[in-house]
């Protein structure tokens, strides 16, 4: 603990760098994936292209991208930009697939009801399709965030600053405490962000009661209808369909 009290400033700086390199790709990846997935859903040529492309991309090791990207982007090899771009690509690879599945398995009756109520395509997308896809997106985001946080530290091997630097520096100078602090800080960031995303998902999908897992969604629907729900009836009926999406997504 002595090491930490003397170096907490460095640890905070590195934790900040680590956060930027892991969270920014999640935000950028989400912004790219949602429109891409919506376009690909139901498309005969874009869908297979994206699904194959994203699984191929995901097979390429992160260190490969960290080293190859400077060549493509013209950045320095120790630049955080390489990590951010590489991890954004991974986030897209994870999210596009689950978002395509989410959009494709929306209940047709719900979409038709929205159209019949006078929703134009744009409003139907933001008001109905997107909210119904939230549980699947949050599940994908949680996976992407946790895996990003552990991948960022690998960049330290080729000199990119993050909490991983505590590992390489700790090994070089034989300081066990430094490595332990790095591990604990990394896990802490992962757990906190994961829980924040879980909460965000709950807030965004209030028609599913807090604590109502996908498995229980079907059973609790009856009680939900009596509750003071502000959402349209169609959205509530879609809960069962979403439970199917979520369990399917978890398996994929």
């Amino acid at each position, binding site marked *: 603990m002595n090491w930490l009290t003397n170096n907490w400033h460095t640890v905070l700086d590195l934790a900040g760098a680590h956060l930027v390199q892991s969270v920014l790709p999640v935000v950028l990846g989400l912004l790219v994936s949602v429109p891409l997935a919506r376009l690909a859903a139901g498309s005969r040529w874009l869908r297979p292209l994206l699904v194959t492309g994203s699984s*191929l991309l995901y*097979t*390429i*090791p*992160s*260190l*490969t991208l960290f*080293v*190859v990207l400077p*060549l493509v982007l013209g950045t320095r*090899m120790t630049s955080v930009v390489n990590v951010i771009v590489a991890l954004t690509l991974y986030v897209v690879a994870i999210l596009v697939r689950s978002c395509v599945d989410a959009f494709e398995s929306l209940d047709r009756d719900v979409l038709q009801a929205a159209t019949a109520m006078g929703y134009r395509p744009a409003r139907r997308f933001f008001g109905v399709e997107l909210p119904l896809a939230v549980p699947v997106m949050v599940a994908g985001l949680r996976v992407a965030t*946790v*895996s990003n*946080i*552990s991948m960022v*530290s*690998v960049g*330290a*091997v*080729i*000199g990119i600053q993050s*909490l*991983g630097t*505590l*590992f*390489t520096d*700790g*090994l070089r100078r*034989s300081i*066990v405490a430094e*490595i*332990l602090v*790095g*591990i604990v800080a*990394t*896990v802490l960031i*992962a*757990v906190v962000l*994961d829980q924040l995303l879980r909460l965000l998902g709950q807030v965004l999908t209030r028609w599913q009661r807090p604590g109502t897992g996908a498995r229980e969604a079907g059973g609790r629907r009856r009680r939900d209808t009596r509750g003071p729900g502000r959402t349209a009836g169609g959205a509530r009926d879609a809960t069962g369909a979403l439970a199917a999406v979520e369990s399917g997504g*978890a*398996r*994929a």
Partner: protein
Amino acid sequence: MSLVADAAQFLTDPASWSGPSGIPQRLLEHVGYSALTMVIALAVAVPLGLWVGHTRRGGGVVVGLAGALRALPTLGLLTLFTLLMGLGLLPPILALVLLAVPPILSGTYSGIAAVSPALVDAARSMGMTERQVLTRVEIPVALPVILGGIRNAALQVLATVTIVAYINLGGLGRYLIDGLAVRDYARMLGSVVLVAVLALAADAVLALVQRLVTSPGLATAGDRP
């Protein structure tokens, strides 16, 4: 783009393909570390996943354990174990096993747990013993999911073995670390390209295996491997 040409030259130079630091030797080390890791991880995670999936006891613990292990940074474990146990093969293999266990464990557990209870009840009522239920019904039905987890783990291990060169071991990452030390970018590029090619090849082989061992009875049910 001359860097690309330099990297290509490194990869095609006959001198890179022979001797104790040649590409075949490094490739063999890389695959060797990965295989050793996978054997140990499979021996730990598959029986545990089968048991928890079959008895449906402790599923929450397994999911929580797998999630917690997933958040651990492998580079941190690698450097920590090396400091505590010294150089050698044990520290990196231990760190890599901890990387490989979560996907195998959760794949095996969720695959078995997702087998329809009606199927299991039918097997029991036909007079199958618990062992027969597991080996003749649950495992064959869950095999695509179990293999999906194993494939995932194998890819992560192959990619991560690259960093064991950081603690003076071999593998394809050797060129990356050595190239970094002397600022030879072409060699680093060659190294990571080799790792990527290895990962893509391994993924293709595992995908083929996954397709071959999937029971024909499952293939018609609109599965997505």
